[in-house]
Structures are given as structure tokens and as C-alpha cells.
């Protein structure tokens, strides 16, 4: 009896230590506009699905799960130059980039690439963009050639990271939220 009890205990302990199955991760996009045209958008995509479909799409600049960018510039800001500066900067040290249209502050904080954008041209609307991407995802995104973004690599890194809010955008009438979690519907 004692031996059986011991065997059962060992089995129970071994079973409880077995790694839990990796839960599916979902990308959620939530848009709420309350301006002149009220609009509500909800998109839910399993990251697993995105990871498998992207390499199968070969159109325009998207090939084998990678996007080729001409000069990797967004709003006249050279993306790679900014990210290289962040990569070598200290934690919580912001790099500020001013363009004609917006003030962009970028920093590394607690393992995240943090981007805060203030739209300078529309002060009355006070548009704010907060982007917070795990640095492991950024590294994966930039792991390919100089002028391409590895979307599949980024999705894998995102799925491995855990639940996180990626983007929030707020202005007077709009709220946008993009996040990853294990729920199969937007909460």
C-alpha cells in the first residue's frame, strides 16, 4: 500500500510538472470612433494563423513573410537609424526625433521599445500615440536584410512573449487599441 501510494504521488508530481500546452495567442484590434461618424471595429486574429499565412503570400513588397521597404522611413524618419540609436542607449533614455508633422520620443524601457508620438499639427485634437513593443519583437522584425522587416519572425517573438498591449491611440474622438492575449475574442 505504501509503495503504491508512493508511486501515485510520484506520478502526480511528474504530471503536474509537465509543461502546460502553449495557449494560442490572439492579436486584437479595437477601434472606437465617436466623432461625426460613429464606428466600432473589432478584429481578432490567431497569431498562429498569421504566422502560417504570411509566408504563403507573395505580392508587391511582401514575400516569404518579409516586407521589403524602400528606405524604411516612416513620416520622414529613418526607422533603422532610430532603432540602432535606441539599441545602444541606456534604459529609460529617450531619443527625441522632431519632424514637420510630429514629435516622436523613443526609448528602451524594461525590455520594451516605447514610442510616444504627439501630433504637433493638430494640437486641438491632442492626438497621442503610445506604442510599446517587446524589444525581442523589434529585434526579430529587423533580423533580416537592411531594407526588410521580418513579419513572421516578429509574430513568433510576439507569441512567445506573452500578453501585452502594443499600441494605443487616442484623440478627441477616436480610441485605438492593439494587443495580444490568450482570449479568442476582444474583451
Amino acid at each position, binding site marked *: 500500500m505504501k509503495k503504491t501510494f508512493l508511486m501515485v504521488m510520484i506520478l502526480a508530481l511528474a504530471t503536474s510538472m509537465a509543461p502546460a500546452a502553449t495557449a494560442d495567442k490572439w492579436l486584437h484590434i479595437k477601434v472606437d470612433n465617436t466623432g461625426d*461618424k*460613429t*464606428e*466600432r*471595429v*473589432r*478584429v*481578432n*486574429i*490567431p497569431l*498562429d*494563423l498569421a504566422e*502560417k*499565412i504570411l509566408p*504563403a*503570400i*507573395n*505580392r508587391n513588397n511582401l514575400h516569404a513573410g518579409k516586407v521589403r521597404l524602400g528606405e524604411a522611413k516612416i513620416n520622414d524618419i529613418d526607422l533603422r537609424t532610430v532603432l540602432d540609436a535606441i539599441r545602444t542607449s541606456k534604459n529609460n533614455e529617450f531619443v527625441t526625433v522632431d519632424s514637420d508633422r510630429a514629435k516622436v520620443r523613443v526609448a528602451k524601457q524594461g525590455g520594451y521599445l516605447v514610442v510616444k508620438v504627439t501630433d504637433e499639427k493638430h494640437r486641438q485634437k491632442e492626438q497621442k500615440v503610445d506604442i510599446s513593443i517587446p524589444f525581442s519583437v523589434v529585434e526579430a522584425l529587423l533580423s533580416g536584410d537592411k531594407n526588410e522587416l521580418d513579419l513572421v519572425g516578429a509574430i513568433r517573438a510576439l507569441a512567445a512573449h506573452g500578453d501585452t498591449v502594443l499600441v494605443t491611440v487616442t484623440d478627441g474622438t477616436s480610441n485605438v487599441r492593439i494587443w495580444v492575449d490568450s482570449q*479568442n*475574442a476582444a474583451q
Partner: protein
Amino acid sequence: MGAAVYNAGAVQVRVDEKKLDGAHIHLALPASVVNVGLKFAPDYQLRHASKEVQPWVPAIKIATEELAKYPYLSLVEVDDTTDHVRIFKHGDKLVIDVDTPEETVHVSVPLSTILSAVKKIEAAGPGV
């Protein structure tokens, strides 16, 4: 039970116009009808469709295989002041529901039918 079996493999299309004396179209076609219908489509139209769909076939195949893993999946919901759109996967079907002031539209297609149709259109391409 016969009705349940029939509906399980059927492509369902419902269009209801909301105006007075509006049209009401309700179709429930066995999935096999879609494949038979493709056989009767003119060759030039099938070749054109094949050319358009070719770049997307690998992605569609993967999408239908992956979507089959989820018993229910809400993909897209869009609502504004007048229009409402839902795209979701329910059971083995991809469902699209649209509600506008003018009409409601419901389309429900088994994923297997989508895959089968895409393969047939792909096969109709030039040189095949």
C-alpha cells in the same frame, strides 16, 4: 436529421431587401452544386479567375486548414451608425453577415467548399 445533414454541407445565401416589396432571395445549395457549376462556367472566365486567384491559393489553402481548428472564431466586426458587418467562423463554415438600412445579407460557406472551389479554379489555369 435529414435537414441537419443537408444544411451541414450547404452553401447558404440569404438576401432580404428592406424596402416595401423588396426582393427576398434564400438559397441553400449543396456544396457539390458549386463544383458542378464550375464545370459549366465558360473556359475563358475560369482561366481569368484562375489567373486572379493563383497568387492567393497557397494562403487560402492554409487559411482554410487553420480555420478548421477553431470551432468558433469571430474574425471581424464592424459597426457604424447604419451598417453592421460580421465575419466569423462557426462550426465548419465561414459566415458573413451584413446588415444595412437597405438590406440584410447572410452568406455561409463550408470551408471545404471554399478550398475545393479554389483548387478547381486554380486547375483551370493556362497550361494545366
